[in-house]
């Protein structure tokens, strides 16, 4: 089930709101049980076969947390920690990487049967989330949660269960047992949810149609303009798609009194790749920073060691996104850019005009999305060749068609990557009149309701509605 679906909007959400808010606020435990049951049902809708996997992951993290908590002998705590790490990564490894590994061994001449495994929805997200809990408990950064239902609620909480953001236990630790739902929180959640829904239905899906249309063709047959149009469309699609999901997750969390951290901060206005990664998928990059990069030594070590640490992080980041060499190359691409900015051209980049810095970043990111979207390395190479004018090339007309057909979405999409919300708020704050106050108060409300209405129109009339980050 996805948030931008009628089953969610018309049945799941109303039923949950009704059941949840019928329970008095003082019965926090009952409300949590309602939320947990609905969350498990939400996951089950994607396939009942995978529910045991989620429950197993919850069990592993609960037991791991109990054992890893301070107060036990060190060996028990380590057993708890490494047991949870091995269990969580073992499940992830089997379901996500076993087929990839076997195919590569076969390619190397080692005949190994390739298991046919369907990737369970959201496994990368809930595995990382569960691990962060056990590691934080082991480190003493979080208290051990002795109530298994609350660990289950933390791991399985439906807004962030299948496509993030990766919520740290410390972020919601207090709120699981002591949170306050209110009209203010609920209404802010509604507004945020509607903005996310609109972003997904009106922009991401349209750009997805363009990207799918272009990337479904042989790379060698693409004209330069069409290849660029496809890359630009995918660049917008992946941002609006994923950030929309995060918006909806944050909004839904807010409706039930949870405060998830922001996952995106206008990444396409970054002036360097380093800055881009401070703004893109923040919950993942901080997860790797805190649980992989810093434990490996981070940057407080020799240059050689630092390069190795970064290499490990970016290889893992690439592989986290998918079991395919294109994702490995995607990770390596960012490794090269980030180490380059740190050790080679960072100083020169700082001195360049702002426009050039933005263009450099955008170009680097667009190339990365081509690697990300391509089904294999050969296609990626062919596509990049087409982008630099090396394709045999269908007539440019296809690119022109995509520009003309989706002109409103291109226009809105390009505008929407800029932080208009902040600019408008600053502009309104500088004005004292009644008009400014009205716009500040009512503007988001009407905009959100308008987006909800338009999204419903799109939901009912269109069938093109995939979520990219479900595959991770």
């Amino acid at each position, binding site marked *: *089930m996805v948030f931008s679906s009628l089953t969610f909007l*018309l049945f799941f959400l109303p039923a949950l709101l009704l059941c949840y808010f019928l329970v008095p606020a003082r019965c926090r435990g009952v409300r949590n049980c309602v939320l947990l049951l609905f969350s498990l049902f939400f996951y089950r809708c994607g396939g009942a076969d995978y529910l045991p996997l989620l429950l197993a992951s919850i069990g592993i993290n609960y037991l791991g947390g109990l054992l890893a908590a301070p107060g036990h002998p060190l060996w028990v705590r380590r057993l708890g920690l490494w047991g949870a790490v091995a269990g969580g990564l073992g499940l992830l490894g089997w379901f996500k990487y076993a087929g990839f590994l076997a195919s590569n061994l076969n390619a190397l001449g080692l005949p190994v049967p390739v298991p046919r495994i369907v990737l369970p929805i959201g496994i990368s997200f809930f595995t990382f989330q569960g691990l962060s809990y056990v590691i934080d408990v082991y480190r003493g950064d979080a208290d051990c949660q002795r109530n298994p239902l609350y660990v289950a609620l933390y791991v399985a909480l439906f807004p962030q269960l299948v496509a993030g953001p990766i919520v740290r236990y410390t972020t919601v630790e207090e709120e699981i047992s002591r949170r306050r739902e209110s*009209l203010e929180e609920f209404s802010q959640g509604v507004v945020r949810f509607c903005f996310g829904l609109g972003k997904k239905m009106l922009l991401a899906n349209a750009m997805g149609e363009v990207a799918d249309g272009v990337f479904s063709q042989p790379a060698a047959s693409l004209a330069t303009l069409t290849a660029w149009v496809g890359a630009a469309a995918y660049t917008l699609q992946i941002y609006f798609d994923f950030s929309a999901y995060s918006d909806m997750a944050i909004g839904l969390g807010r409706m039930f009194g949870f405060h998830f951290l922001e996952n995106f901060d206008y990444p396409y206005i970054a002036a360097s790749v380093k800055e881009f990664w401070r703004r893109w998928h923040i919950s993942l990059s901080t997860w790797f920073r805190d649980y992989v990069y810093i434990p490996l030594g981070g940057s407080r070590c020799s240059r050689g060691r630092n390069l190795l640490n970064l290499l490990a992080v970016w290889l893992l980041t690439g592989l986290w996104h998918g079991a395919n060499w294109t994702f490995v190359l995607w990770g390596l691409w960012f490794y090269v850019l980030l180490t380059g900015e740190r050790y080679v051209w960072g100083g020169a980049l700082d001195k360049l005009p702002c426009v050039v810095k933005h263009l450099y970043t955008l170009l680097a990111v667009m190339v990365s999305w081509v690697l990300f979207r391509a089904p294999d390395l050969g296609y990626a190479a062919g596509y990049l060749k087409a982008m630099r004018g090396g394709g045999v090339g269908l007539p440019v007309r296809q690119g022109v068609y995509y520009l003309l057909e989706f002109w409103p979405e291109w226009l809105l999409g390009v505008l929407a990557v800029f932080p208009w919300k902040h600019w408008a708020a600053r502009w309104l704050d500088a004005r004292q009149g009644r008009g400014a106050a009205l716009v500040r108060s009512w503007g988001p*409300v009407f905009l959100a309701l308008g987006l909800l209405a338009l999204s419903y129109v799109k939901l009912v009339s269109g069938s093109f509605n995939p979520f990219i980050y479900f595959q991770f």
Partner: protein
Amino acid sequence: MSRNAQRLVTAAFLLFLGLALAATLLREEETYSFFENRTLAPKPVYSAQADGDGSYFSGWERYLSDHAAGRKTLLRLKTRLDLALGRPVVNDVVVTEEALLPYLPERPVDRAAVSRQAGAMADRLAEIQAAVEGYGGYYCYVGVPCQYACREEDYPWYLNNRADLSAWSVQELSRAAAERGVNFLDMGPVFRAQPDPDRLTSAVDNHYSIQGAYLTYRTILERIHAQTELEVPVLGEEDVTISQVPNRYLGSRTRKLLAQEWREDALYRLDPAEAVPFTRYNYGKETYSSLYALPEHPWEDVTYNLYMGGDLAETLIDTGREELPSVLVYGDSFTNALECVMYLSFDKMYSLDLRHYKDMPLEDYIAGTRPQVVVCIRDYESLLDLEANGGG
């Protein structure tokens, strides 16, 4: 947000969810969408396997998308909005000043694959022709340009009109047919040679007009005369009357646009100056003696189903003129308009649509009825398609 704004957005959101839910639950169940020309998704059937792999709940999503509250109105609204925004393609229809045309996604033409397909098609046609000629009959495979092929110039320059694919398909089939001695008649050059080719096709539908069907009829009969000694009367323009039906023409493209955009076009019927009485049998059963399925009221829209009442598995028109030869016309829906003319020159006219007729293979049907003339009508889009009316 002020307190009032918080109240409003919360109330509006909850009201929206509640109303949409109630309206969806109370909505009258429909199984078919006329404007989309498709069956709506049914309620999913529960099975442990479907539940396990998630297809049960995705089935519910498909069902709800098709049965959501206000769907028809919202589809119209979206279509209106897209038209107002000036999108060149709306609901897969290319909207031009002159016509409403099909959107043809850009694909490189695989010439070798087309050539292979043309060879395979010609092989199959040679088999059918041999079966017909085996008892002394005459066979002709007729290619008719469909709307996009007739109106290649109407497409904006940045949209694919399949001109390359159409030309290559016809050329390769002509070559392969000639090599195998298959009697192939391409109506493309005949249409293009007319002084006003636009009137032969529709501005709003994939099919040709009755004028196009009549021209095809005459060309086929001229070829029969040129290649055989069969005595088949040809009705000239003075022998027929072509008159416009009063109902508004809802072409397949207009229909895809949910009747939100129209182009000037009409449907016509062709009647002989001297009536030819006949008995009609649909699937072996005597039925109403009419060729034109006009709506009950003049204010109702009429579709291409006017001709012969649409696609039927098997039809027989028996004029009881035993001195004339019999004919079998088979093919896709392009046969329908042609049949309204063709029967006038034959004793019996059998009509088959192998997409729907499953009783026996084509060759068995031909052997059973032994018509002196067998004609297959395919449009350019399905010219090389071996499925169903391609002979299977």
